Protein backbone atom coordinates (compact mmCIF):
# COMPACT_ATOMS: atom_id res chain seq x y z
CA UNK A 1 0.00 0.00 0.00
CA UNK A 2 2.92 2.27 -0.59
CA UNK A 3 2.31 3.15 -4.14
CA UNK A 4 0.19 6.18 -4.85
CA UNK A 5 -0.99 4.97 -8.20
CA UNK A 6 -2.29 1.74 -6.70
CA UNK A 7 -4.22 3.64 -4.10
CA UNK A 8 -5.52 6.11 -6.65
CA UNK A 9 -6.66 3.32 -8.94
CA UNK A 10 -8.54 1.58 -6.16
CA UNK A 11 -10.15 4.82 -5.02
CA UNK A 12 -11.22 5.66 -8.55
CA UNK A 13 -12.43 2.14 -9.37
CA UNK A 14 -14.64 1.84 -6.31
CA UNK A 15 -16.54 5.02 -7.05
CA UNK A 16 -16.87 4.35 -10.77
CA UNK A 17 -18.31 0.95 -9.92
CA UNK A 18 -20.91 2.39 -7.58
CA UNK A 19 -22.01 5.21 -9.85
CA UNK A 20 -22.39 2.69 -12.64
CA UNK A 21 -24.48 0.37 -10.54
CA UNK A 22 -26.56 2.90 -8.65
CA UNK A 23 -27.11 5.62 -11.24
CA UNK A 24 -26.09 4.64 -14.77
CA UNK A 25 -27.72 1.22 -14.85
CA UNK A 26 -31.07 2.37 -13.38
CA UNK A 27 -31.01 5.25 -15.82
CA UNK A 28 -30.58 2.78 -18.67
CA UNK A 29 -33.48 0.76 -17.34
CA UNK A 30 -35.86 3.66 -16.82
CA UNK A 31 -34.85 6.18 -19.44
CA UNK A 32 -37.39 5.03 -22.01
CA UNK A 33 -40.37 5.29 -19.66
CA UNK A 34 -43.30 7.01 -21.31
CA UNK A 35 -46.48 8.46 -19.83
CA UNK A 36 -49.58 6.25 -20.01
CA UNK A 37 -52.40 7.17 -22.32
CA UNK A 38 -55.93 7.40 -20.99
CA UNK A 39 -57.86 6.69 -24.17
CA UNK A 40 -61.29 7.52 -22.77
CA UNK A 41 -60.33 11.00 -21.71
CA UNK A 42 -57.71 11.47 -24.38
CA UNK A 43 -54.98 12.57 -21.99
CA UNK A 44 -51.49 11.33 -21.23
CA UNK A 45 -50.55 10.91 -17.61
CA UNK A 46 -48.63 12.20 -15.83
CA UNK A 47 -49.51 15.45 -17.55
CA UNK A 48 -46.46 17.50 -16.64
CA UNK A 49 -46.56 21.03 -15.25
CA UNK A 50 -47.62 24.09 -17.23
CA UNK A 51 -48.31 27.74 -16.59
CA UNK A 52 -49.13 28.55 -12.97
CA UNK A 53 -48.43 24.99 -11.81
CA UNK A 54 -44.94 25.12 -13.32
CA UNK A 55 -44.23 28.40 -11.55
CA UNK A 56 -45.78 26.99 -8.39
CA UNK A 57 -43.39 24.05 -8.43
CA UNK A 58 -40.53 26.53 -8.19
CA UNK A 59 -42.22 28.23 -5.23
CA UNK A 60 -42.55 24.81 -3.53
CA UNK A 61 -38.81 24.36 -4.03
CA UNK A 62 -37.77 27.83 -2.91
CA UNK A 63 -39.82 27.66 0.28
CA UNK A 64 -38.32 24.26 1.13
CA UNK A 65 -41.53 22.25 1.39
CA UNK A 66 -39.57 19.02 0.86
CA UNK A 67 -38.16 19.26 4.36
CA UNK A 68 -41.51 18.36 5.94
CA UNK A 69 -43.51 16.76 3.13
CA UNK A 70 -42.88 13.70 1.00
CA UNK A 71 -44.18 12.94 -2.48
CA UNK A 72 -43.96 9.17 -2.59
CA UNK A 73 -46.68 6.68 -1.74
CA UNK A 74 -45.25 3.46 -0.37
CA UNK A 75 -46.57 0.07 -1.52
CA UNK A 76 -49.52 -1.62 0.14
CA UNK A 77 -48.40 -3.65 3.11
CA UNK A 78 -45.28 -1.52 3.67
CA UNK A 79 -46.44 1.21 6.03
CA UNK A 80 -50.01 2.50 5.82
CA UNK A 81 -49.76 5.14 3.09
CA UNK A 82 -52.59 3.75 0.97
CA UNK A 83 -54.81 3.01 3.98
CA UNK A 84 -54.37 6.64 5.03
CA UNK A 85 -55.81 7.71 1.72
CA UNK A 86 -52.60 9.19 0.44
CA UNK A 87 -53.00 7.45 -2.91
CA UNK A 88 -54.91 4.66 -4.62
CA UNK A 89 -51.65 2.88 -5.52
CA UNK A 90 -47.96 3.06 -4.77
CA UNK A 91 -45.84 5.64 -6.59
CA UNK A 92 -43.80 4.39 -9.53
CA UNK A 93 -40.91 5.87 -11.50
CA UNK A 94 -43.30 6.78 -14.31
CA UNK A 95 -45.01 9.31 -12.04
CA UNK A 96 -41.82 11.40 -11.93
CA UNK A 97 -40.81 11.60 -15.58
CA UNK A 98 -41.56 15.32 -15.76
CA UNK A 99 -40.26 16.07 -12.27
CA UNK A 100 -37.01 17.93 -12.68
CA UNK A 101 -35.84 17.38 -9.97
CA UNK A 102 -38.17 14.90 -8.24
CA UNK A 103 -39.37 16.30 -4.91
CA UNK A 104 -39.77 13.02 -3.08
CA UNK A 105 -38.82 14.42 0.31
CA UNK A 106 -37.51 12.54 3.34
CA UNK A 107 -39.58 13.71 6.30
CA UNK A 108 -43.24 13.39 7.15
CA UNK A 109 -43.58 16.15 9.68
CA UNK A 110 -46.60 16.80 7.50
CA UNK A 111 -48.53 14.35 5.31
CA UNK A 112 -47.49 13.01 1.95
CA UNK A 113 -48.53 15.29 -0.93
CA UNK A 114 -48.25 13.00 -3.96
CA UNK A 115 -52.01 13.13 -4.48
CA UNK A 116 -52.96 16.21 -2.50
CA UNK A 117 -54.72 17.65 -5.53
CA UNK A 118 -57.13 14.74 -5.48
CA UNK A 119 -57.47 14.65 -1.70
CA UNK A 120 -57.96 18.38 -1.22
CA UNK A 121 -59.23 19.99 -4.42
CA UNK A 122 -60.35 23.27 -2.81
CA UNK A 123 -58.11 26.23 -3.60
CA UNK A 124 -59.73 28.15 -0.75
CA UNK A 125 -58.73 25.44 1.74
CA UNK A 126 -55.14 25.66 0.52
CA UNK A 127 -55.05 29.45 0.76
CA UNK A 128 -56.28 29.38 4.35
CA UNK A 129 -53.93 26.54 5.20
CA UNK A 130 -50.88 28.30 3.78
CA UNK A 131 -51.82 31.59 5.45
CA UNK A 132 -52.34 30.03 8.89
CA UNK A 133 -52.20 26.23 9.03
CA UNK A 134 -53.99 26.09 12.35
CA UNK A 135 -57.16 27.46 10.77
CA UNK A 136 -57.72 24.24 8.86
CA UNK A 137 -55.57 21.89 10.96
CA UNK A 138 -55.64 22.48 14.74
CA UNK A 139 -52.39 21.43 16.37
CA UNK A 140 -50.41 21.64 13.15
CA UNK A 141 -46.79 22.81 13.50
CA UNK A 142 -46.50 23.97 9.90
CA UNK A 143 -45.14 27.51 9.63
CA UNK A 144 -47.62 30.19 8.57
CA UNK A 145 -46.85 31.72 5.16
CA UNK A 146 -48.48 35.10 5.71
CA UNK A 147 -45.95 36.72 3.43
CA UNK A 148 -47.66 35.03 0.47
CA UNK A 149 -50.83 37.06 1.02
CA UNK A 150 -52.23 40.56 1.26
CA UNK A 151 -54.60 41.20 4.14
CA UNK A 152 -57.74 43.30 3.63
CA UNK A 153 -60.37 44.40 6.06
CA UNK A 154 -63.08 45.65 3.76
CA UNK A 155 -65.23 43.82 1.21
CA UNK A 156 -64.82 46.67 -1.29
CA UNK A 157 -63.00 45.71 -4.48
CA UNK A 158 -62.06 42.23 -3.27
CA UNK A 159 -60.86 39.98 -6.08
CA UNK A 160 -62.64 36.70 -6.73
CA UNK A 161 -60.07 34.46 -5.08
CA UNK A 162 -60.06 36.37 -1.79
CA UNK A 163 -60.86 34.15 1.18
CA UNK A 164 -62.56 35.17 4.40
CA UNK A 165 -60.51 34.45 7.48
CA UNK A 166 -62.53 32.97 10.37
CA UNK A 167 -63.05 35.67 13.01
CA UNK A 168 -61.18 33.88 15.78
CA UNK A 169 -58.01 33.98 13.64
CA UNK A 170 -58.48 37.53 12.37
CA UNK A 171 -56.26 40.28 13.72
CA UNK A 172 -59.00 42.77 13.00
CA UNK A 173 -62.48 41.76 11.97
CA UNK A 174 -63.58 41.31 9.28
CA UNK A 175 -60.49 39.96 7.54
CA UNK A 176 -59.87 38.61 4.07
CA UNK A 177 -56.71 37.28 2.54
CA UNK A 178 -55.88 37.95 -1.08
CA UNK A 179 -53.32 35.52 -2.51
CA UNK A 180 -50.30 37.09 -4.16
CA UNK A 181 -48.93 35.58 -7.35
CA UNK A 182 -46.68 33.10 -5.59
CA UNK A 183 -49.56 31.80 -3.50
CA UNK A 184 -51.72 31.32 -6.59
CA UNK A 185 -48.94 29.52 -8.43
CA UNK A 186 -48.14 27.32 -5.44
CA UNK A 187 -51.77 26.29 -5.01
CA UNK A 188 -52.09 25.63 -8.75
CA UNK A 189 -49.13 23.29 -8.39
CA UNK A 190 -50.56 21.56 -5.33
CA UNK A 191 -53.88 21.07 -7.09
CA UNK A 192 -52.05 19.49 -10.03
CA UNK A 193 -50.63 16.78 -7.77
CA UNK A 194 -52.89 13.88 -8.67
CA UNK A 195 -51.38 10.54 -9.64
CA UNK A 196 -54.51 8.44 -9.14
CA UNK A 197 -54.40 7.00 -12.64
CA UNK A 198 -53.67 3.38 -13.42
CA UNK A 199 -50.30 2.16 -14.54
CA UNK A 200 -49.45 -1.36 -15.68
CA UNK A 201 -46.56 -1.77 -13.22
CA UNK A 202 -48.72 -1.18 -10.15
CA UNK A 203 -51.92 -3.17 -10.67
Amino acid at each position, binding site marked *: *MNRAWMLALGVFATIV*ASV*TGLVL*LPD*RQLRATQPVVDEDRGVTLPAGYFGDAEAGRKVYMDLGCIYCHTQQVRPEGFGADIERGWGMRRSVARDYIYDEPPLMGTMRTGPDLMNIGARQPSAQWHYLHLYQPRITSPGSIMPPHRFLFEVRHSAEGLPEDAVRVPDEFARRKPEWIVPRDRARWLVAYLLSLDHNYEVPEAR
Partner: protein
Amino acid sequence: MAAFYIALWGLAALLGATAVGALVWAIRRGEFEQLREASMSIFDDEEPVGEVTDRFPRN
Protein backbone atom coordinates in the same frame (compact mmCIF):
# COMPACT_ATOMS: atom_id res chain seq x y z
CA MET B 1 -34.95 -6.65 -20.29
CA ALA B 2 -32.79 -9.76 -20.52
CA ALA B 3 -29.93 -7.70 -21.92
CA PHE B 4 -30.20 -5.44 -18.90
CA TYR B 5 -29.90 -8.32 -16.43
CA ILE B 6 -26.95 -9.73 -18.33
CA ALA B 7 -25.29 -6.33 -18.04
CA LEU B 8 -26.07 -6.14 -14.32
CA TRP B 9 -24.82 -9.60 -13.41
CA GLY B 10 -21.92 -9.23 -15.80
CA LEU B 11 -20.85 -6.04 -14.08
CA ALA B 12 -21.14 -7.65 -10.66
CA ALA B 13 -19.06 -10.62 -11.72
CA LEU B 14 -16.47 -8.37 -13.33
CA LEU B 15 -16.16 -6.25 -10.19
CA GLY B 16 -15.90 -9.27 -7.94
CA ALA B 17 -13.25 -10.86 -10.12
CA THR B 18 -11.29 -7.60 -10.25
CA ALA B 19 -11.32 -7.31 -6.47
CA VAL B 20 -10.11 -10.87 -5.98
CA GLY B 21 -7.51 -10.40 -8.70
CA ALA B 22 -6.24 -7.20 -7.09
CA LEU B 23 -5.94 -8.94 -3.74
CA VAL B 24 -3.98 -11.87 -5.16
CA TRP B 25 -1.72 -9.51 -7.10
CA ALA B 26 -1.06 -7.40 -4.01
CA ILE B 27 -0.19 -10.42 -1.86
CA ARG B 28 2.14 -11.80 -4.52
CA ARG B 29 3.85 -8.43 -4.78
CA GLY B 30 4.62 -8.34 -1.08
CA GLU B 31 2.40 -5.40 -0.25
CA PHE B 32 1.35 -7.04 3.00
CA GLU B 33 4.76 -7.49 4.52
CA GLN B 34 6.50 -4.97 6.72
CA LEU B 35 3.24 -3.63 8.04
CA ARG B 36 4.55 -3.28 11.56
CA GLU B 37 7.13 -0.70 10.42
CA ALA B 38 4.35 1.35 8.92
CA SER B 39 2.40 1.46 12.18
CA MET B 40 5.54 2.70 13.94
CA SER B 41 6.18 5.39 11.38
CA ILE B 42 4.35 8.06 13.36
CA PHE B 43 6.84 7.78 16.23
CA ASP B 44 10.45 8.93 16.34
CA ASP B 45 13.10 10.21 18.75
CA GLU B 46 11.26 13.40 19.52
CA GLU B 47 7.98 11.62 20.30
CA PRO B 48 8.83 7.99 20.95
CA VAL B 49 6.57 5.05 21.74
CA GLY B 50 5.51 5.17 25.36
CA GLU B 51 5.37 8.94 25.63
CA VAL B 52 1.98 10.56 26.11
CA THR B 53 1.65 13.74 24.03
CA ASP B 54 -1.43 15.56 25.28
CA ARG B 55 -2.77 16.86 28.55
CA PHE B 56 -5.14 19.44 29.97
CA PRO B 57 -3.60 22.87 30.41
CA ARG B 58 -2.30 23.64 33.88
CA ASN B 59 -4.94 26.17 34.91
